[in-house]
């Protein structure tokens, strides 16, 4: 599903060039549940953003579902983000002036799905993440865990192949973190590839494979015994 070959990425800061990813090789197959760990500043978010076509890389190749993702036009990038990928962020990134249902339905708006249809689907997904009774609530009326579940529902609505999550539990207490992780496992069980960036060991333990980054390279790549994928 995700094939990365010698990817390099550096940030240009004036005359200084800061190399963040120094040649990463990585293959993630369909249906895997993977976590990416590493100390702060090791390039986890940078890598995930490249996987999500939110950011560009300078060298190497990235194939998503068999297609090379390099130097895409904004329109193409929007298309792949919309159809292949679902994002979950640490700070949820819900639109404050839209209620839960509208937030979840938004990706389908960009697929030109009719309003009735996308609202029906959004309601289904809110049921699935356990928020069926909160559909009309505004984000500021929801707790952190609830917001993150709305965000997950939004990531799922376009039925993407891959879910990418950057520190999805970073802003949550341990109990709600567990609930959210259970939800990710459920999503993974339904056949989706899930990649979670985290620096929490408890989160990584719940995934079937953990990739450790350090100083812009993959330090090790371990399969967790006892976690089925």
């Amino acid at each position, binding site marked *: 599903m995700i094939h990365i070959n010698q990817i390099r990425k550096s940030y240009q800061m004036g005359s200084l060039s800061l190399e963040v990813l120094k040649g990463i090789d990585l293959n993630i197959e369909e249906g895997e549940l993977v976590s990416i760990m590493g100390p702060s500043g090791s390039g986890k978010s940078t890598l995930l*953003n490249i996987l*999500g076509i*939110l*950011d560009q890389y300078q060298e190497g190749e990235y194939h998503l579902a068999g297609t090379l993702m390099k130097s895409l036009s*904004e*329109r193409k990038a*929007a*298309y792949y*983000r*919309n*159809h292949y990928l679902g*994002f979950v*962020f640490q700070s949820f*990134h*819900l*639109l404050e*002036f*839209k209620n839960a249902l509208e937030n979840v339905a*938004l*990706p389908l*708006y*960009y*697929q030109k799905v009719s*309003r009735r249809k996308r609202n029906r689907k959004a309601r289904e997904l809110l049921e699935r993440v356990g928020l069926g009774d909160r559909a009309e609530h505004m984000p500021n009326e929801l707790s952190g865990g609830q917001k993150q579940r709305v965000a997950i529902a*939004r990531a799922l609505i*376009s039925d993407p192949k891959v879910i990418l999550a950057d520190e999805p539990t970073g802003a949550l207490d341990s109990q709600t973190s567990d609930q959210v992780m259970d939800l990710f496992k459920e999503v993974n069980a339904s056949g989706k590839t899930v990649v979670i960036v985290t620096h929490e060991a408890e989160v990584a333990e719940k995934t079937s494979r953990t990739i450790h980054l350090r100083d812009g390279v993959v330090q090790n790549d371990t399969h967790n015994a006892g976690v089925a994928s």
Partner: protein
Amino acid sequence: MFDYDKWQEIWATIRKNKLRTVLTMFGVFWGLFLMLLLLGSGEGLRNGVTKDFGAWATSSGFVWGRRTTMPYQGLRPGRPIRFDMNDVTALENEVDGLHHLAPRLQLGGFGGSNNVVYREKTAAFSIYGDTDAFHKLLLVNFDKGRGLNPLDVAERRKVAVIGSEVQRVLFQGVDPIGEYIRINGVFFKVVGVFSSKRSGRNASRDVQMIHVPLTTAQQAFNRINQVGWFGFIAKPGVSAMTVENDMMALLRQRKRVHPDDISALGHENLEEEFNKMLGLFNGIRWFVWFVGLGTLAAGVIGVSNIMLIVVRERTREIGIRRAIGATPFSIVSLIMQEAVVITAFAGYIGLLLGIGVVELLNLAIGDGAAMFLRPSVDLPTAIASFLILVIGGCCAGLIPAQRAASIKPIEAIQS
């Protein structure tokens, strides 16, 4: 293009920033409102001033005698030029472009000594010896009776046509038709009362006049054969200027005036005046558009500025939208539509209120004010200014929309 969701988006941002949106809208509203008010007032001024021209026959004018200033054929300068009935015949026969000639004679005048008597009342009015042609030159409304006719002139009838002010002062409720007034000691029968088609001071001067047949005046007041000056109307299609020049050439010749002695004859024609006025009003109209478009532009630039702020504030939101699959185009259209909706809505209110106030002005003023009549904005003009505004709104959205589309999702989300 305008689907429900976009409306909802636009409504949501407007609701979130009520004060700011309202202030922006006010700028646009004010621009269009002022523009329509200016256009309406310009039209009112134009109507008010051209109304006075409307009372005059088109391509008409006057020629009168003054004093010579150059010696000619042994005659010394300073000689007054006086006209008589032979000049009338000559002009009528020899000036081709002449449609109607209105020879006139003035007797006594307004502001002079009391010269008109009805029973025990006396007053001073302007008395003119005229022919029926004068009624063709200056149009009036005959409220009662009739104007002078050719028979009055031919038979030297002692009849008078009086202005409405003359009636008011002398008759006070008595029907003047058939009554006799004494002018400089001679009795005249009143056959008509008229009111002016003009406005303001011109109108009040008009209605203090008394017209009697030219021939009667000449005989009764011992001015046999005399003519004071000439009014004229050019034939349709002939310029008043041409007729005026032909008349003056003939009169110079007849009165033995040096052909270059320009100031020996006075002349005035409305064509010239009218063209000057038209030029002035076209100038005013251009000025109004210039100023109006300026205010509109200011409003539109205001919208553009606000939209730039909106885009900056919505950077994160736009980033999120991009991350979940919004194309740059959809972002552009979102911002553009918001700009267009704000300008169009505010503009529409400006349009309604502008036209409303102009109409109210029209009602309030009526015929009361001199130089100002029927202020109005015609529909095509109103629609044109509205369309200009909406197009302006599109332009206003363009730069902010471009800025919005260039937001990189990654940067927006990280911040």
